[in-house]
């Protein structure tokens, strides 16, 4: 709501002042904690300080910006300057997966991991060129609002609501999972308790002030997360490349990494370990081929060994060892098969390290082409999914003008770019550090961080002396992707306060994304479903109250689903993007660029895109147990690559077969195409 005294330029100046003070205050807070650490503050207390200070701060901003005004609640009063909207979008966009998982994925899969880096940045070009300015000119509150106005009718709105909720809910579960993980690591609280502490922080912001509170906390969260991501990278950069902006110099580290990889591939000790794994894998596969026979033979063998040792009067410890082997032997064939499958899976560890920079590695031309197609599939779905996720598109309703919406996409991508072009750098530096310092060191003198993290969770880090030579070989290390960002400060030997800072950054990333998503879900239910479809006479106060209430419900449902720890979260996130790309993108863009696109074209097109996408996922993803052969070897995560074109073609054909849209709709399309038309027929600032 703009009061008569309100002036945009005054507001901008004040914002700059506030956030400069805030950033300075945050840095002072860091320095004070660093000093306290030197004076002997314990690690647990540093963790608590970070947790409660940052969540308290976000809650404080949420409290100060609370509101019950509809336009403030849904679109932050449409006066968020482009630069600040860019920072808020950056925080909204970068989730726990980007902050914690990205560098780890790049560490583990080298060039192939870059598909995510490209996919999660390039989509903003599509947002800028095809959506943001037009949606801002349209100027309502939600994405289903646009679909309903453009195509007319409640069916379209209802489908939009369903799609928006599905994408956002799948995504928010992954965020709350990240919140629980970080809070429990930072403070030693239990995972479930961690989820609810984090949730309290989310709710105070989003519930009290809707979009307005979420926007201003997200700006604060962006500042925390970018400082947290850069600090260890700058330090590692100085160590390995000699300059504080390693992003431009790590190419040479990458070359050195290539040499180290070659050395490791040729090293006889490494080959010895890989041979052990290859043999174990082969034995596992052989046993699986004839399970009954192998089970009987294996059982007989361990029993015979024990009998022989007893007969020969062997030393007590040898007998004890043989007895343990008998006791540990699987109780039945099924249990044995599980074990053999695990052994057969060791084949992966028998392979030499893949060159980090090699694109699409594979045994032959066909395998390489499939790898390339899957890379393209991920890039395609992530990009078009970016341009379809409602919690991002909604942000461009909050700028003061169309012009600002365009610049705002620019600032968004600048803010996101900073983190995404640093992640590959961090991965290379961390890999080089590990390959040169950890590999080849002695098991007797493993660094403290290695044993500490192995204790936290063996799936994050396990180092076992396979060939019993007392030296760490690369093939003996198993490392989980999530470890890279969280443990880099310790690996690099930085003070603990930096570890706390990184955890606080991860928390900010997860909280900010969860805020935006929950708000999208609540608005879709309260605004589109309740107000527009059920009770159009509802008062504004009632609508805002209902939205706040539904936000709490959505948050609690999401937390409940998270506490069940549903499997493969990366697949769920990828699926959300594919679903968005096949359902929203075609009808949004065609609705703006093609006047002829008709109501039934949109309805059938959305259904067709979504249908193909869901069909491909359900029949191909192993979880559902159908496992039909893949089309062109494309993995089910990239189902949007089929869904999007099918949806577009369907919209095209059906639109030609059905009557053209009425005159008002065609005028609406003209209305959104021009930032300012004299005598505009459509009222843009709906209340």
């Amino acid at each position, binding site marked *: 709501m703009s009061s008569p005294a309100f002036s*945009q*330029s005054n507001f901008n100046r004040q914002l700059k002042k506030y956030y400069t003070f805030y950033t300075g205050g945050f840095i002072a807070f860091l320095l004070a904690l660093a000093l306290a650490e030197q004076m002997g503050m314990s690690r647990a207390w540093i963790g608590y300080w970070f947790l409660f200070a940052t969540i308290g701060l976000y809650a404080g901003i949420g409290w100060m910006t609370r509101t019950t005004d509809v336009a403030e609640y849904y679109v932050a009063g449409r006066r968020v300057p482009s630069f600040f909207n860019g920072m808020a979008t950056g925080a909204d966009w970068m989730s726990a997966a980007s902050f914690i998982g990205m560098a780890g994925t790049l560490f583990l899969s080298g*060039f192939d991991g*870059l598909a995510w*880096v*490209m996919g999660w*940045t*390039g989509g*903003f*070009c*599509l947002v*800028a*060129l*095809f959506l943001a*300015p037009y949606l801002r000119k349209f100027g309502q509150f939600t994405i289903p609002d646009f679909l309903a106005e453009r195509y007319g009718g409640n069916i379209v709105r209802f489908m939009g609501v369903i799609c928006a909720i599905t994408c956002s809910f799948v995504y928010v579960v992954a965020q709350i999972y990240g919140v629980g993980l970080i809070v429990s690591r930072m403070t030693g609280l239990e995972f479930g308790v961690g989820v609810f502490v984090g949730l309290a922080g989310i709710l105070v912001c989003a519930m009290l002030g809707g979009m307005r509170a979420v926007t201003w906390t997200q700006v604060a969260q962006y500042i925390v997360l970018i400082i947290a991501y850069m600090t260890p990278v700058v330090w590692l950069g100085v160590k390995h490349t000699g300059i504080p902006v390693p*992003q*431009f*110099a*790590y*190419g*040479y*580290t*990458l*070359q050195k990494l290539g040499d180290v990889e070659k050395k490791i591939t040729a090293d006889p000790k490494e080959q010895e370990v890989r041979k052990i794994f290859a043999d174990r894998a082969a034995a596992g596969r052989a046993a699986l081929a004839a399970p009954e026979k192998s089970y009987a033979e294996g059982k007989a063998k361990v029993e015979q060994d024990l009998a022989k040792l007893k007969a020969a009067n062997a030393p007590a410890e040898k007998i004890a060892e043989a007895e343990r082997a008998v006791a540990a032997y699987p109780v039945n064939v099924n249990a044995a098969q599980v074990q053999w499958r695990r052994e057969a899976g060791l084949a992966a560890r028998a392979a030499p390290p893949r060159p980090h*920079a*090699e*694109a*699409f590695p594979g045994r032959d031309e066909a395998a*390489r082409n499939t790898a*390339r197609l899957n*890379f*393209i599939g991920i*890039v*395609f779905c992530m*990009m078009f999914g970016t341009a379809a996720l409602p919690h991002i598109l909604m942000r461009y309703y909050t700028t*003061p*003008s*169309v*012009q*600002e919406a*365009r*610049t705002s*996409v*620019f600032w968004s*991508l600048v803010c996101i*770019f900073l983190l*995404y*072009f640093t992640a*590959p*750098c961090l991965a290379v530096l961390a890999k080089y550090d590990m390959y040169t310092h950890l590999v080849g060191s002695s098991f007797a003198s493993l660094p403290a961080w290695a044993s500490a993290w192995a204790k936290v969770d063996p799936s994050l880090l396990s180092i076992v002396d396979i060939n019993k030579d007392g030296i760490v070989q690369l093939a003996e290390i198993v490392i989980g992707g999530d470890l890279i960002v969280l443990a880099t400060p310790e690996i690099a030997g930085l003070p603990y306060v930096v570890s706390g800072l990184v955890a606080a950054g991860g928390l900010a990333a997860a909280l900010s994304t969860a805020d935006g998503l929950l708000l999208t879900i609540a608005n879709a239910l309260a605004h589109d479903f309740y107000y527009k479809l059920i009770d159009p006479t509802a008062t504004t106060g009632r609508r805002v109250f209902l939205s706040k209430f539904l936000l709490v419900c959505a948050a609690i449902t999401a937390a409940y689903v998270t506490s069940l720890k549903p499997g493969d979260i990366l697949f769920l996130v990828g699926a959300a993007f594919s679903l968005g790309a096949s359902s929203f993108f075609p009808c949004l863009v065609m609705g703006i660029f093609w006047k002829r696109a008709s109501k039934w074209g949109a309805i059938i097109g959305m259904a067709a895109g979504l249908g193909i996408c869901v069909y491909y996922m359900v029949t191909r993803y192993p979880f559902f147990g159908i496992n039909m052969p893949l089309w062109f070897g494309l993995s089910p995560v990239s189902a949007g690559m089929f869904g999007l074109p099918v949806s577009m073609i369907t919209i095209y054909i059906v639109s030609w077969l059905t009557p053209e849209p009425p005159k008002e709709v065609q*005028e609406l399309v*003209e209305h959104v*195409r*021009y*930032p*300012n*038309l*004299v*005598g*505009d027929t459509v009222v843009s600032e709906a209340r």
Partner: protein
Amino acid sequence: MELSAKHHEYWRKNLVITAILFVVWFVFTFVEIWFARDLNSSMTFLGFPLAFYFSAQGSLAIYVALIGIYALIMRKLDKEYGVDEGDLE
């Protein structure tokens, strides 16, 4: 309202600009990926194999530039065709 010829020209120009930027985006995304193996073995830039450089940094910078260029050109075009929103400050 009835749109004038000038309005139609504005929209045509907008489509041309959008199409050009879209093609650049396409080249630095999908064409680059398609030839990644050849690019990687062809040359290095700042120590990076070329395709690695583009996928990790170069293409990203181009995306940022594309959006910036679009915002600037359109701001000018809005003014030129009298469909701008005036000075908001």
